[in-house]
């Protein structure tokens, strides 16, 4: 189980490393250009490329964050076992739902 979680953690980290760079670069470029929120939404709306990018980003974050949080909780609080794992699954699903909702909102705006 730990080996598989490690694999998922490393794989999602590789995706996030690239995704976060693209995300930050996009923010900086958008802000420098003086774009308003409305203008940004105008560009993302209906754009399948950005929709696909942020969907991948959200999936990677929803996989990565709960595995890391689980490890920290196990190490620093000693909280382990099935209940902890179940809470982490709820956390992962929450991240996924919230993230996909935001991605859809930006696409469908």
């Amino acid at each position, binding site marked *: *189980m*730990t*080996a*598989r979680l*490690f*694999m998922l953690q490393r794989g999602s980290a590789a995706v996030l490393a690239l995704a976060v760079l693209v995300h930050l670069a996009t923010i900086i470029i958008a802000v420098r250009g003086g774009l308003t929120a409305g203008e940004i939404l105008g560009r993302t709306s209906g754009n399948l490329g950005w929709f696909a990018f942020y969907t991948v980003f959200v999936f990677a974050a929803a996989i990565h964050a709960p595995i890391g949080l689980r490890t920290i909780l196990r*190490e*620093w609080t000693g909280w382990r076992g099935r209940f902890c794992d179940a809470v982490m699954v709820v956390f992962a699903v929450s991240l996924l739902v919230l993230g996909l909702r935001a991605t859809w909102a930006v696409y469908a705006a």
Partner: protein
Amino acid sequence: MQRGSDGRRIDRFNVPRQPAQTVLDVVTWIQREADPTLAYRFACRVGMCGSCAMTVNGKPRWTCRTRVERAAPDGHLALEPLRNMPVVKDLVVDMAPFFAKWTAARGVFSPRDDLGEDFAVVPPATPGRRAADAAIECIGCGVCYAACDVVAWRSDYLGPAALNRAWTLVNDARDGAGRERLAAIAEDTGCHACHSHGSCTQHCPKALSPTASIAGLKRAMLHAAMRGEL
């Protein structure tokens, strides 16, 4: 110097300085000249056995290979037993839990069934042999284990020495228990608990790198998981 077994008693001694004096010389002088009840451990005095390891001014070291002027330029030495192991008395720790983890990490050579009667030939240039050679010189002194913060945080972590040993066997072409060994160290008390702080590598008196060995185990684990073996 820390005395007793609960860490609360500190004794102070003034020890005459000698040229090229080692920390072990200081401890020996104290026991022979000042307090014969002092308990400490040593055997070879020349950096071969690893039994004289203690905490010297906060760092785990072999006392026989540590000169006073290097460890304590101002002449003040603070001597404590090794960290992360139960104290028996004064500077002596119980190393049984440390070696139990070598067993738990399957640190025992388990020959393959098909080795045959003759000696197995393991060419020195093969990658596995090189990886094993780089980690094989460990003499089990416990310095890395005492230096490891992860062991201090969670006492069930197998620790750098046991995992370094497991890494030598994972790379041993003659060994037949690779899968069982990876399974034994795959849980979160094994190599995945390592934070790669590198304290083990920093303090190893043999200049080994358990950090690199543990990273190798993580890679081996990843490959095994991808093949569906774990």
